[in-house]
C-alpha cells in the first residue's frame, strides 16, 4: 500500500494520462471562473488581462512537454 502497488501494472500511456490530468483539472477550474472574478482589481478589461488565457497558455505548453517526454 505505502508504495502505491495498485499502480504498478499501469501502462506508461495511462501513467502519462493521469499526470496530464493533473494539469487539465486546474485549467478546467480556471475556465469555470466568472469574468468578474478573473478581472477583479484589474485596471481595465483588456484581453491580455484575462487570466483564463494565461492559464490556457501555460497548461498547453506543459501538456506538450509531457507528451514529448
Amino acid at each position, binding site marked *: 500500500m505505502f508504495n*502505491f502497488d495498485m499502480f504498478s501494472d499501469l501502462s506508461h500511456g495511462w*501513467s502519462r494520462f493521469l*499526470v496530464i490530468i493533473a494539469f487539465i483539472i*486546474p485549467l478546467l*477550474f480556471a475556465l469555470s471562473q466568472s469574468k468578474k472574478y478573473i478581472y*477583479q*482589481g*484589474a485596471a481595465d478589461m483588456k484581453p491580455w488581462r484575462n487570466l483564463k488565457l494565461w492559464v490556457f*497558455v501555460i497548461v498547453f505548453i506543459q501538456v506538450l512537454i509531457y507528451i514529448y517526454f
Partner: protein
Amino acid sequence: MTLTGIDTFLLLLYLGGIVLVGVYFKKYVHSTQDYFLAGKMLPFWAIGMSIVVSDIGALDFVGLTGQAYRYGVVVGNFDWIGSVPAMILAALVFIPYYWRAGVYTIPEYLGRRYNLAVRTLHAAVWLIFITFNLGIMLWATGVMLSELMGWPIMLAVIVTAVIVGLYTITGGLSAVVMVDVVQLIIMFVGGLAILILGLWELGGWGAMVERIESMGPQYAHHFDLILSPQANTPYPWTGILFGLALVLAPAYFIANQTIVQRSLGACDEWNAKASVLWGAFLKMFIPLFFVFPGLIALGLFPGIEDGDRAFPVLIKQLLPPGLTGLVFAAFFAALMSSVDSALNSAATIWTKDIYERFINPRGDDRHMLVVGRLFTGLLLVFAVITAPISSLFPGIYVYIQTLLSFFQGPTLAILLLGMFWRRTTQWGGLVGLLGGILLSALLYLLKGRLFTIDDPFLYISWWSFLGSILLAVLSSLLTPREPLEKLRGLVYHMVLRDRELQDVMRRNIEEETP
C-alpha cells in the same frame, strides 16, 4: 578555477549594481507595511520573477544539474508538474483569499482560524527551520565559492552576508523583490549561455539524445519524465504525482511564507493573482537552464563520478572569458535570492507572530519597523556565526530538508481543512498538525521496512498528509463546534463572497495594526 579580468569586472559590476538597486528602495520604507509587504505596491511581473528566483538556490544551481546528470530529465518534474498546477490553484484560489483576509503571515491565519498553540507551533517550527537553514545556505555557498574562486570560506560567507544584509535590512520586501528581478534576468542569461554553447558543442538536441542513449541501458530513460515505480529511481511517477504534485508543491506555494508574502505585497487583487501565474510561466523555463545543462555535461563529459561536479566542469570547459563572469554572477544571484527571501520572511514571522504577539503588543508601527530591521540584522549575524557548524555535520542540509518535509504535509492538511471545512475545530487543527508531524517522523524511521525506494520523501509527504487529515477530522468531530462568529471571514466562501464582511475585516486589521 581562476577568473579573467573581464570576468572579475563583470562580477564586481553586478554585485555593486545589486547593492545600489536594493538600497535605492530604502526611501520607500516608512512603515511595517512598507517593510514587510512593500507597501502593497508591487506589480505582478516583479513578484512573479521574485517567486521564481527565490525558489532557486545556489545549491540547486549545482544540485539540479548534478541530479539531471545522474537521473536525466525526470528532475524537470520539480519545476513542471511539481510547480505549475499548484501555482495555478494558488493564483486563483488561495492568494486572493489571503489577500482579501489581509493577513501578513501564514501562522497569523492559523492562529485566527485555530488557536494560539497552532500559530505558535507553526511559527516556531518555521523559524527554527529558516534560521538554521540560513547558516547552512551561507556555509554551502562559501564552500562552493571557495572551490570555484579560491576565496577563504569565511570570507565568502561574510561578503555574501554583508551584500544581502545591506539591501534586505534597509529596503525590506520591495528591495528584495526588485533585486530578485535583476537576479532572475542574470540567471536566465547565464543559463541560456550554457544551454546554447553546450548544444552547439554537441551538435544539437538530436545529437545529444543519440549520444546519451547510446551510452548503455542505464541511460535508456534519461529522456523520460514519467518513470515506473519499479524503476531504480527516487522519482517514480507515483511519487511525483501523489507526493510532489498533490502535497509538497501545494504546501510550498500555498503555505510557504516566503512565497505567499510576495503576493500579499501586490498593488491589487488582479496583480496578486497574475503574479503567481506569471511565476508559473517563468518556472517552465527553469529546467532549460538547470536540468538540460546536466544532460549537456553528460553528453560532453561522461564519467564524472560525482554528479555535483558536472556544473563546475561545464563552466570550466565550456565557457569563454566574459561568459564565465556572467555565469558566476548568476550563481551569486541564485544564492542571494534565497538568502534574502528567507531573511525577510523570518524577520516578518519573528516580528508579527512572536514579538508583537508575546513581547510587546502595544508597540507602535515605528517601533515595529525598527524591530523588523533589527531582527533581520540579528538573523544574518546568527547565520554567519552558525554557518561553520555545518562543516561539523556532513549532510546537514539534506537532513534539515527532510525535517521540513515532515512538516509540509500536515501544514497543508490543516490549512485546507481550516479553509474549506467549517466543522474543523481548534483541537482538530492542533491534533492534525502535531499528529501529522509525528506520523512523518515515524514513517521516516520505518522507511526501510515500509518503502521499496531508497529516498521515499515523496511517499512520506503523501501519507503524512492523509494521516493528518484523518486525525484532524476525527478530533474535530469529537470536539465541540467553533462558534460561528469566530469563523467569520476565515472559511473560504465567507471571505470571497461576503463583501460586507471583507470591509469589516479590513477595518479590524487596520485597528489591530498600530
